[in-house]
């Protein structure tokens, strides 16, 4: 039964990859290569997995874990957006997001542990 479910999941993943790769994506910006256009959509699928875990997590700690993973993925978004658009300030947003996400996760951990904020 578990192997059947795994096989169905694999088929669903293959179909979604094929849809992403062969669908004629609209060109929102003046993209320089097709590779980055599809790479962006793979990152969007990963972020949607993380969002699903935020939606369905049984406890609050699960949602905090998925939020941490989503915050690291957004740095990847900023790094990839910097290449085709040619704008250098996207990586600045990435660095600022890395530090700010770290501090917010520390605060969430303290809240989950039940301590006060000045301890």
């Amino acid at each position: 039964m578990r192997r059947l479910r795994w096989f169905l999941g694999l088929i669903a993943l293959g179909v979604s990859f094929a849809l992403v790769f062969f669908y004629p994506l609209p060109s929102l910006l003046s993209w320089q290569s097709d590779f980055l256009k599809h790479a962006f959509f793979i990152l969007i699928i990963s972020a949607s997995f993380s969002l699903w875990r935020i939606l369905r997590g049984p406890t609050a700690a699960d949602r905090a874990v998925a939020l941490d993973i989503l915050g690291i993925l957004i740095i990847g978004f900023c790094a990839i957006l910097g290449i085709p658009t040619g704008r250098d300030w996207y990586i600045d947003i990435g660095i600022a997001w890395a530090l700010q996400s770290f501090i917010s996760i520390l605060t969430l951990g303290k809240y989950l542990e039940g301590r006060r904020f000045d301890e």
Partner: protein
Amino acid sequence: MKVKIIIFILAFLLWLLLSWSVDPVHLFLGVLIAVLVCFVTADIFLESPQVFKKPSRYLWFVYYIILFAWECFKANLDGAWRVIHPDLPINPGIVKVKTQLKSEVGLTFLANSLTLKPGTMTVDIDKENGFLYIHWSDVKAQDVEKATELIVRKFERVLMRIFP
């Protein structure tokens, strides 16, 4: 005073790398912010500034970075294999290991590199007795000595020479 000078140099170097320009305006702002940072955070960082002078530490640090990158790559292949396997071959548990490192920076580096090593993740540190609690995704030994031999030894041997 020595600590403040070291922190000033590190902060100014970080500013130069981040702004990547040699305008006089940028340099002046960098000096101002570095002085502010070194006066605010001087008593938080760096307990012992004299160990900055030994040159052999830097060679061991380069060796440590290479070892760490290789272990990190192996950890990723291991994690990807466990994710796509249909039976989920995990055997998890939290074990306790003992370490001999004393300084705070050394313990932090050990815990971080154990988190990115294949199969282990640090959960908590008992600083007085030198115990680390580690979540191991494939438990092979439950008592303290064997787990220490299997998990910690490879990094501790290098880190003892960098952070004595």
